[in-house]
């Protein structure tokens, strides 16, 4: 499994979205998120965006007030994950129009759907923005 989890955390350290591709209990998730957030948010812009934590490699990127943190296996390509994060942000941007933290808070379900279109079972399966968004728009119309 390439990607183990995707987190979106604001700069106060509050989780805004958490998607795990392996089962962890709620306590484990809370602990993990706390540790990672503490580690990553303390880093400066001049430092690199890769952090090792437990047996994960964490690739993160900050967009305005929101941190995107992706936990991956050790042999995953860090730069590709950074591109993945960027693609995710672009996709959300296209859908919501100038996406911000509030969009994700109020449309968590949609954010999850986008993520689900992009990542299946920890593997990135889709990298085209329109392919990701079409089913979501269709679903919007249907319901």
């Amino acid at each position, binding site marked *: *499994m*390439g990607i183990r989890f995707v987190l979106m955390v604001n700069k106060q350290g*509050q*989780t*805004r*979205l*958490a998607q795990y*591709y392996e*089962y962890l209990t*709620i*306590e484990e*998730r*809370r602990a993990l998120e706390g540790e990672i957030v503490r580690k990553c948010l303390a*880093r*400066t812009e*001049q*430092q*690199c*965006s*890769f*952090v*090792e934590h437990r047996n994960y490699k964490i690739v993160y990127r900050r967009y305005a007030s929101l941190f995107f943190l992706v936990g991956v296996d050790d*042999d995953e*390509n*860090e*730069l*590709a994950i*950074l*591109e993945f994060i960027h693609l995710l942000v672009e996709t959300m941007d296209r859908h919501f129009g100038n996406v911000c933290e509030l969009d994700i*808070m*109020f449309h*968590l*379900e949609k954010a*999850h759907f986008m993520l*689900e279109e992009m990542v*299946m*079972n*920890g*593997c*990135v*399966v*889709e*990298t*085209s923005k329109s*392919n990701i968004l079409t*089913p979501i728009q*269709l*679903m919007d119309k*249907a*319901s």
Partner: protein
Amino acid sequence: MAGSSIMDNLFQRTLEDLIKGFRLQLVGESALISKAVEEIRREIKSTDLDIKSIALQKLSYLSAIYGIDMSWAAFHVVEVMSSSRFAHKKIGYRAASQSFHEGTSVLLLITNQLRKDLSSPNEFEVSLALECLSRIVTIDLARDLTPDVFTLLSSSKVFVRKKAIGVILRVFEKYPDAVRVCFKRLVENLENSDSQIATAAVGVFCELSSKDPRSYLPLAPEFYRILIDSRNNWVLIKTLKIFAKLAPLEPRLGKRIVEPVCELMKKTGAKSLMFECVRTVVTCLSNHESAVKVAISKIGELLVDPDPNLRFLGLHALSDVAPTHLWAVLENQEVVIKSLSDEDPNIKLESLCLVMAMVSESNVADISKVLVNYALKSDPEFCNEILGSILTTCSRNVYEIIIDFDWYVSLLGEMSRIPNCQKGEEIEAQLIDIGMRVKDARLQLVQVGRDLVIDPALLGNVHLHRILCAAAWVVGEYVEVASNPFELMDALLQPRTNLLPPSVRAVYIHSSFKILVFCLDCCLMQNQEHVSSLDSSNLAVGYSGLVAGKKHTETRDFASCEGPTHDAQNEGFSPQNSMDSSEQLAVQNNAVRIVTQDQTSIATSLEKNNFTLESIVGLLNLIELVLSPLAANPDVEILERARNVLSFVQLIKAEISDNSNQNVDILDKKDAQVSAIVKLMCDAFSDELGPVSLNAQGRVAVPDGLVLNENLDDLNAICGDIELPSSSSFSIGGPHFGTTSDASPFNLPKKEETEPLNESASLLEHRKRHGLYYLPSEKNEITYDDYPPPNDPQKKTNLNDESEDLSKLAGQSLSLKKRPNQTKPRPVVVKLDDGDVVPISVKKPEPRDDSLSGAVRDVLLGSEAKPSSSQSNPSDKSSGTDKKNLSSYHPSEIKENVIGAEMPDQANPNRKSKHHGRHKERRRSPRKTIEGGEHDQRENKKSSHRHNRHKARQGSSSPLNVAPQTPVIPDFLL
């Protein structure tokens, strides 16, 4: 009832309301949460699915964001999932994939719901079900739903198909037999022209091949085609990852891919892809020099990039390449060293690793010096990283790269004094270890130990206590090379030692005991010389002879061949010595001492120290004064040792006090008694401590009449299939077991508990474990010198710059010049023939997903060992459903697959490519090729020729047969 439902409906808070509520109320969040959960608990019981689903949605949100437990709502989740409305279903599935896991009991209830949704005409419902399945799949679900996923693998809707491909990975993991059903379709999807489908399939194969690459070698031509054809960077990265796993298994594959990989590396504009190419080259194509050169030039570009991410990855790649191509590191030395002071701790760590990779015996001193200076300036964390890596590198393979131990021991002392140093335990271990292993280093070691022990400021630092413990032990154990034992005694008994933890303090007291005994002994010896009496105690003279011998051993440079002789002298008090004439010994004593003084400036000098009776009495008084209060210490270790010393002091005092004013002759007689006591104590400390081999126990001979092998075979037969973890450090396998029986002695004791065993066997076992093993009585320090180790000439960079700036060191090229001051030969380092290498367990770990890879291999390589049972199983399952067609053509497909997969093993390249054509064709017209497949099965043995022609015809009619027939395929694995 209906009324209340409407009311509920009207006044139920939606998720949006809930979120708004949280945003408005910034304090008292937890109260708000518990209120919301209370509300949800009430609402979720509603019979109205609208209310229920909204309640569930809120609960999922709270659980995802605030970590609220939602396992109690599992049954409600199932209810919402099974709603016919998509809006409800969506919420239900989301909640299920978020909260269900293997232990959720209601999972048993959802199999049919999932099956229904998987075959729904609404592709979004199918997608929901697949998504959920990928998260919560269990063995049962995987087994029951394999036929449904199999059908979806060839769905006409790309949207559904790519998700089915994504799910299959989890299904395989849980239920390896699914491979026999689905694998072929998965391979077909890999060959699909639709990029979305191929992307998904490559992702799955990347994961599969990382676990058991060998099984996927037959698919190499397919991956190669993707590598050449694909324009999607993500797919290319995944394909490179697959090749990185496959190439080490098949050298010809490496040759084949090295060129396209280099092409990609040069051409691509995407840094991620370029980096993946670099990583592939340095990890698995490192024997292709030209490719490595290109990769290293790319790494060089990364290293100077302003983006810290790229710099980090460049350094990382460089450390991957370091073991095989050290020149690459040396080429980029300057950048690496500059990175030591980067802002980012991660980058600093990487560069530290690289600097340590450059260390060799010729530059270790210089590099260490510079690094210690860096450590002084760094933050505590990185400081300790530096110290840790110096310690690890220098002690590797029993101090392999250290030539000048005096320098290294001083470095250890220097490191101890670095304010942020927290490496106490490691330094402690190394100080003691060097003391035991390297005799020539003891003089310097005692000097360093003295400096540490004597400094009252160090006693207050808790991180130094372990080091002080080692220092105290060293000065006590090797006091005979100390320049001034009295000074040491003062240091060990200084008042601030009460800051030490009891365990360390006990070592201090014990060391002072050793020093006292040494001083008394020297004093006696001096008196004997002074009087030069022939009739003084033989024992005392004998003992002084022994001391002389010991010193002789320690201070001389000796070659390895002389080792045993000296050991014999060290062995302890030997009767021959005492029989020798004392004059001779005295002379020898003096001679040795003179030699000692000549050789080293701070050598032991008994004359200089003047062990007069007065000084000894002063010493005894001091000890008594300091240790008396400790005789009632609550810590038993301190108490016991303090009492030992005090009793000894009182004993000696009683002997000498009444004589102190009398003349020498009477003193002499008294001396006989004193020296008898002192001799006894000296004897107790005279045996030299040496390192103990990890395998020491294995050298104990097996007692006569004990046949250890006798029952082992029976046991193996009884419980041969039980896999037991073997501990590598517990080794009771002696030479009697031979080399191959490594595992059996490990296994035995544990089997004892699980298997019925005849009495004699268990008795033997018991004896073996508890009674009849002990450490060998002979000294097991076998001194041999296998130095110098083979060293890559490239490693011998010259870094002997005097400047403290490493970047200047870096400026120097890798010249082969040796350090000029290496005139001093490396001292002997005691190594135990086998003990210093931790035995590596010979057994390979069992692959975890054995059954999965086995199944894949069966499918791909056509092993027909387990034929019908597994194949019929899925068909049985599917026969109950409406997919009758599945059960009818499963077996034939599998058989055909088996034949198809044999292709790579067969010699004819044409035949192989034609098979590919057939694959394509078959997808277009399943019915027809199924017949072809059965046909194959019957006939492939007798007439492969005809079969080929038949296939070729079919292949040529296929529109898709072009790509696989490229001439690259035959080169691969034939």
